[in-house]
């Protein structure tokens, strides 16, 4: 059952209503059963994998916490992490070879479980004694498809309150708003860009440069709208059950450089890697000076790339960003010297940096979006005039697909830079129309403007 289906929202309304009718002591089991049922609607065998991974991590956490010696703790920790990483790598690498479906959400719940083991290792008080509450953490259905990757302490602390508390009306209304906003981003913007990409992608060499350039920009903007849309829905659904998940985006293309962008893009993953990979590595390699920093950044970014899949394309995606980040880190001082002294130059540098950041992200999307290096190279040659472009233009694409592309690109970009000026407009709208009227109109807009969806969420495949 997908997030963008009427059936899902009908079930959700019933499930959320029932949640607050269930006595506090049963809520954990109720929500766990609900999460497992949601997962089972996708795959029953892989539900078993989720349960086994959760039980193994629960056991490993207890072993780490109760081990008397530091060495034993380290062994249990390393064993637990290795088992989870092998599971992810096995399915990402070997699964494709053997034609196995990649288990839904494996990359996300594995990282949650690793975070739990590391936290318990660092601080034994992070141990979760309640098995049902623990199993709910990786299985929590709003977050299982594509995250966000919530930290264990944050989740358990919120859950302790949510499991007993009465319905928080304001929080639930926030959830409504997030869900509606997410649906709009996904169905009204991302899917329209996706339809355009699907047409051009069949034979990009038949289209002219303008269409190809727009298509490549659309990769980035579609990914943003699709993933940010998903995240909003996931956060909104979580709020209906009293859980506030971590944000994944914070105006990524308002960033002045690519280093800053990675602090605002897929934040729950990048912060996870920062805390559990980058920082420990930096501590370990601090003696190497700049070379150590370069190594840390490179390992971190390659890990981000390979987290998406064990393919050459994702390796190149990670390596490309490692290069960009290293250049940014190493030129920080000269840039500050050149541009940082006057307000005008600072503003100009920020603006040009934001444009350059979007360009670099878009260029890296050639690896991210395509399946093979050959295909990425084809797109690159078309973009850089190394290959003569085709003759087909905008007019050769069905008008209902091509007409909204520019408007959707502009909207996606506007939201990706933080939707400046939207809040005052929202305040005026809020003063003019009561909340139920606003939500009713939003529902009508979604219903009337939704095109045939190209499929599920892009990040659902990771």
């Amino acid at each position, binding site marked *: 059952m997908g997030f963008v289906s009427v059936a899902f929202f009908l079930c959700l309304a019933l499930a959320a209503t029932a949640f607050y009718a269930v006595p506090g002591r049963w809520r954990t089991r109720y929500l766990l059963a609900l999460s497992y049922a949601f997962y089972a609607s996708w795959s029953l065998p892989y539900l078993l994998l989720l349960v086994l991974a959760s039980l193994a991590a629960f056991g490993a956490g207890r072993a780490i916490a109760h081990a008397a010696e530091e060495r034993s703790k380290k062994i249990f920790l390393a064993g637990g992490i290795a088992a989870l990483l092998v599971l992810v790598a096995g399915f990402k690498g070997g699964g494709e070879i053997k034609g196995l479906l990649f288990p839904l959400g494996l990359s996300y719940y594995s990282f949650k479980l690793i975070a739990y083991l590391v936290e318990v290792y660092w601080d034994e008080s992070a141990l979760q004694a309640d098995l049902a509450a623990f199993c709910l953490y990786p299985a929590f259905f709003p977050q299982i498809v594509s995250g966000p990757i919530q930290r264990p302490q944050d989740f358990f602390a919120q859950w302790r309150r949510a499991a007993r508390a009465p319905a928080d*009306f304001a929080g639930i209304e926030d959830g*409504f708003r997030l869900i509606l906003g997410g649906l709009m981003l996904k169905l009204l913007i991302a899917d329209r860009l996706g339809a355009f990409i699907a047409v051009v992608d069949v034979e990009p060499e038949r289209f002219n440069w303008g269409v190809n350039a727009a298509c490549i920009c659309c990769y980035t903007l579609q990914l943003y709208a699709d993933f940010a849309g998903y995240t909003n829905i996931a956060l909104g659904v979580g709020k209906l059950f009293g859980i506030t998940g971590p944000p994944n985006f914070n105006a990524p293309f308002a960033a002045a450089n690519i280093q800053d962008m990675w602090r605002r893009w897929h934040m729950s993953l990048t912060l996870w890697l920062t805390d559990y990979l980058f920082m420990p590595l930096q501590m370990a390699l601090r003696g190497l000076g700049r070379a150590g920093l370069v190594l840390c950044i490179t390992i971190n970014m390659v890990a981000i790339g390979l987290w998406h899949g064990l393919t050459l394309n994702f390796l190149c995606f990670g390596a490309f960003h490692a290069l960009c980040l290293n250049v940014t880190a190493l030129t920080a001082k000269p840039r500050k010297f050149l541009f940082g002294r006057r307000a005008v130059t600072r503003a100009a540098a920020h603006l040009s940096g934001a444009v350059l950041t979007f360009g670099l992200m878009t260029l890296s999307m050639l690896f991210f979006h395509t399946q093979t290096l050959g295909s990425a190279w084809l797109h690159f040659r078309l973009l850089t005039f190394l290959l003569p472009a085709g003759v087909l233009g905008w007019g050769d694409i069905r008008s209902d697909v091509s007409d909204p592309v520019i408007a959707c690109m502009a909207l996606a970009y506007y939201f990706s830079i933080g939707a400046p000026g939207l809040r005052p407009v929202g305040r005026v709208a809020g003063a003019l129309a009561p909340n139920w009227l606003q939500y*009713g109109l939003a529902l009508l807009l979604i219903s009337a403007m939704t095109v045939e969806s190209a499929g599920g969420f892009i990040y659902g495949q990771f």
Partner: protein
Amino acid sequence: MASSRFLAIRNPLWLLAASLAVFLALDNGIFRSGMYARFANTETLPAQVFNTVHFENLRPATGKREIFLAGASTMHWAFWCKQYNLAHENTGYAFVMGAIAGTNEEMWYYVLRAVDPDRDRYAAIVIPNAGYIVDSWHDDEAENYDDAEMLAPILSLSEWPGVIANFQNPDLRWKAALLAAFPSHGDAADLQDLILHPSLRAARLRQRWAGGAFWLYDWPGTPGSMQDFRAGPGNGGVAVFPSDLNSFERANSIDEFTRPSPRDAAINTARNAQFQAFWLNKIIARYAGSSTILLFAQIPRWPMPLPARGPIAGAPDLRQLLTHDVNTVFLPEDAFVSLEQPKYFHDTIHLNNVGRAIFTNLLGDQVLRVLETQGQEAQGSHAQRKTT
């Protein structure tokens, strides 16, 4: 987005209920009522269905006994009501065009319900078919979600269960049920076009409102013929296209020259025969006991035998699948075969304006002959009853 405190609802259940109520009220008020369809793009198929019904219901009566032409584009392109009505002003009959491109028997049933609710408006209804012997084809006509989208603007809520039940695929049933529940769900491309090109839409609508249903009566047909058309290797068997065919018509022509697999042909033929018989029998049942004559006609099918529609062994005869009532008449199957020549066709399925002029007279005369004969028989039986 902050909400005003005035009239704001805080309880989530009441908030959800009120939001849904607003949504459903607007959804039904704008999209189910036909209000939006008046502003829909004149070129989309749902709008053509709506407009045909809308203008037929607005049209003042001719003062004559009217003959309604049902059908798809093959009929729309083939018969020129204006020409025939002007040339035969004193017959007491007038033809009205109700054929709509892209429609099928199911849609004709619902269109007839919409334009003739009391079953007494027309002296006769001409129902064309592309061959009494149901031909093979690539597609399963019955499993086409577009049908539901096209019908949406004219269907009432009580008519939807029949449309939904007609789909065999559960996914299509679910999609059709959603469209029935949320009528706004079927107009995304059109609404998008309205938002992106409001001035163009306004100009088109002005033209339509000024011209009324001109396309139903005044449209002169299409020149060009299939005489240049050559079959050969490549392009699915097409070597040379007539120069005036657009890419869509060329693609259709290639389809017509591509023979479906025997298995697909057998499955689709059986399904299509069942589908056609089901809906045509519903039309027959609807007019049973009325004074309206239902005339079935095999209209010119093709400029030359088409591999895609070649008959398959054991293909059913539609005449045997339909109920023969006192008011059903089947015109002879060879009535228009003389027009099945390249020089009378614009493409592989539509007559050009030369073929159209001939077909208009042939069909019109045949229909009037049938009506006169039926009228005499009715008078005879009436006189006989009086004598008895």
